[in-house]
Structures are given as structure tokens and as C-alpha cells.
């Protein structure tokens, strides 16, 4: 589904990712963990070309999604980002109504008529486990929602355009335990239809939601394995030191 082959990435002279190769299966949840500055978010952002927006960066190697190199010149980045959605650390709804937030991508991409858009908005809100909480106030501002609801709205917005992959960069780090648990439950349920890649500082969250975990340190992918194995018997000393809190 997603395949990175010998990926090296540079911010100017800084070598941020060193020879990363890995494969992510479809309909799975993959978590990336590691200390700040280890390259996990940089790697995540490579997967929908968010790093293209940063001047002075350079990529070597290839990133394939469904067998196609997403850095190929023929790739339309807007189309790519529709297929590979992203949810950020801080909920970032548009200053619009709840309905318009979810409908935005559909309208911009001219995906369907009014009735189809309404149906898709409803389905996306149901898929993001928000529908019951907002169905009676779809025209209210998204800013009236709580932080946890706003984050689920952002997930609904990403789901609306029917992506195959959803990238999540610390999606629950700004949320309370109840909202966090809702997001985790959501991630678990979304796996049936989407491929999810999540970056998190919360190791227990990685352990709870993911099928596979990758541990990054100083730009290297130290270990990439099944989550259960990573958290019971990691093969590398560095992984063990990090997840048991002995790092540094």
C-alpha cells in the first residue's frame, strides 16, 4: 500500500531522515514514535508531500502509494492530498459552519450535487462518531464545538473526500482523556476502510491503537515491527530504553 525505499530527506544541510525503508499495509494502523526531532513527523509529512511547502528541502529515494511514486512529476499534488488526508495536532476547523467544514472539500472538488454533498457530510460525521452530537446544529459555527469535537470534525472533513490514507500528526495530544479515548476508538473503527498512519508522543496510545509501530531516533528508523512485539520484546536496545523511559 505505502512503500518507502531508501528515503533520505534534508532540510538544507540537515540530514533529517536517513535511509528509511518500510512498507505499510492497507487497512492497518501504523504508529511512529520517537523523541522530538527524530524525524517521525517529517516522514509522515512526506507521505502527502507537505514538505514540498518548505523551502530548501531535498528528497532522495522513493515513496510509493499503491505502487505509484507520489513524487513523480505527473502527480497532481492536490489530487494526491485528496487521497491522502491529514489531521493535525491542533484542531484546525475553518471559520465556517459545521456543515460547511465537512462539505468544503466536496464543493472545491465539485464532488456531487447538493443532495449528494449533504449525504456525504452526514456519512462522514457518522464515520467520525460526531453525528449524534452535531446533527441538530449543523449550521452553527465549528468554533462552538469542544476541542475533541473539533478534532473529530477535522477527521470528518478529511473523510468526506474519500481518501484511502489518513495521516494523523499527534491527533489527541491537545485533548482530555475522554476525547482522546473517542479519537482512539475512531481510529480503531476507521481501520476497516482506511489506512492510518499516526505520529504520537503517547506511547500507550501507540500501543493501544496501532498494528505496527516504528521507532525513530536521530533520523533513523531504529525498529519497525508489530506493536505487540515492540512493546513486549523489542529487538533493539535503543527501542527498549526509549519505551521504558530510560532514554537520555
Amino acid at each position, binding site marked *: 500500500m505505502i512503500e518507502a525505499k531508501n528515503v533520505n530527506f534534508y532540510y538544507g544541510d540537515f540530514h533529517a531522515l536517513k535511509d528509511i525503508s518500510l512498507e505499510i499495509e492497507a487497512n492497518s494502523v501504523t504508529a511512529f514514535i520517537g523523541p522530538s526531532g527524530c524525524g517521525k513527523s517529517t516522514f509522515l509529512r512526506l507521505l502527502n508531500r507537505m514538505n514540498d511547502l518548505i523551502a530548501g528541502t531535498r528528497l532522495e529515494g522513493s515513496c510509493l502509494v499503491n505502487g505509484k511514486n507520489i513524487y513523480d512529476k505527473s502527480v497532481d499534488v492536490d489530487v494526491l492530498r485528496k487521497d491522502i488526508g491529514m489531521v493535525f495536532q491542533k484542531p484546525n476547523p475553518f471559520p465556517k459552519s459545521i456543515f460547511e467544514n465537512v462539505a468544503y472539500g466536496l464543493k472545491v472538488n465539485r464532488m456531487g450535487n447538493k443532495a449528494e454533498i449533504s449525504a456525504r457530510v452526514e456519512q462522514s460525521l457518522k464515520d467520525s462518531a460526531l453525528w449524534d452530537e452535531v446533527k441538530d446544529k449543523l449550521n452553527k459555527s465549528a468554533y462552538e464545538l469542544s476541542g475533541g469535537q473539533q478534532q473529530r470534525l477535522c477527521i470528518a472533513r478529511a473523510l468526506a473526500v474519500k481518501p484511502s490514507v489518513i495521516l494523523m500528526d499527534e491527533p489527541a495530544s491537545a485533548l482530555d482523556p475522554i476525547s482522546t479515548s473517542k479519537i482512539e476508538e475512531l481510529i480503531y473503527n476507521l481501520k476497516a476502510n482506511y489506512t492510518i498512519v499516526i505520529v504520537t508522543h503517547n506511547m500507550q496510545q501507540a*500501543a493501544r491503537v496501532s498494528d505496527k509501530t516504528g521507532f525513530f531516533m536521530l533520523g533513523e528508523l531504529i525498529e519497525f515491527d508489530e506493536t505487540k512485539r515492540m*512493546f*513486549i520484546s*523489542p529487538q533493539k536496545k535503543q527501542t*527498549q530504553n526509549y519505551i*521504558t*523511559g530510560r532514554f*537520555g
Partner: protein
Amino acid sequence: MEKAKHNETELKALKEEMSHMWRLVLSQLQKCKQAYLTNDTELAREVISREKRVNTFELKIDSDCENYIALFAPVAVDLRLVLSLMKISGALERIADFAEGIAKHVTIEDFHPITAKLKEDLKIETMFDTVISMLSDSFAALESENTKLSGKILQKDDEVDTLFMEGKEFLAKYVQKESSYSKCVLETLLVLRKLERIGDHCSNTVEEIVFYIDAKVLKHVKSRE
């Protein structure tokens, strides 16, 4: 870093608690051997009365492990250690139960006709020495975090099993000749059975230590070398 230190202090305390329990159970087993071989009822009563202390250790270690899991959410080697300690404390408690059981035999009058010659024929001292060495070697493995000797310790369990089977055969023949000693023979068979079970629990502790240190599961594996 602060959290790591706190975490490590707690783990160290848990391990120390386990060391105390282990030493107590080892001493129970050694005393029970001496009481049995010399028919020392006084020493046997001491073993029986100290059994409660082992139970207290088991409860304390279980509760400390539960707290550690709840408060620190351990993973990897730390998780394996806590899980192992919980199981080891159960195994040690069972070993101490059997030691108490053997001590109780010593205090039973029906048991006294058993002669030193019969004990020798049954190689009961060898059985005692083998399980004691299993228990002390596995303790050393945990203390040094070295599982090199685990294969040898597990082999000793096979030796104990063989001694038990041979002893059982011997007693079957013995009771035919000496039918007036039948009650004593039954008591002796129960002692042999307890020693055989102690060997099994010693094996369990080694398996847990290997799980903790090497992340390998030896349970129910036929060839454990």
C-alpha cells in the same frame, strides 16, 4: 529522567522483596530437608509456623506488582519483569506449601517407622538436594540476570521426575513385603510426590526468568535446551 529514576527505584524495591521471599523459601526447604532426614519434629514445627510469612510475601508482591502496572504502565523488559515476578511469587508460595506439607509428615506418628535405610534406598536426600539446587540456581539466575544455566536447571527437573518414578516402584514392592508399614509407605509416597511437585514449580520459576531476561517462552516446549 526524573520519572525513569522513580520507576527504577520502584522496580528495584520489587526485586528486593522477591529476593527476601526467595531466601525465606530456600531456607524453609533446607530446614524441611533436615527435619525430614533426622526426624526433628521441633524443626518441622518451625517450618510449619514460618509458612505464614511466605504467604504474606506473596500477597505483598502481588499487590506491589498490581500497583506498578496501574501507576507506571510498564512495557518491554519492565513489563516482562513484573509479570514474571507475579508468577514467581505464586510458584514460590506453592513450593513453601509443599515444604510445610513435608514438615507435617514429620510430625505424624505413623510416619516414624520409616528407617534411614529406606530413605537411602529411595534417594530422598538426593531428591531434596536436587530441588534445593534448582531453587538456589534459579535465584542466582535472577540475581545475576543470566539465563545460561537455565537448561541445566530444567534438566534437573527430569532427574527429580525419574527419582520419583523409581521411588514409587520401590515402595510398591516394599509394601508387599512389609504390609504392616502400609500407612508409613503411603505417607512416604506423598513426600516423594511433594518433592516432585517442588521440582515442577522450580522449573516454572526458571521459565519465568527466561521470559523476563530473554523474552522467550519455554512453557510447554518439549525440547527446552
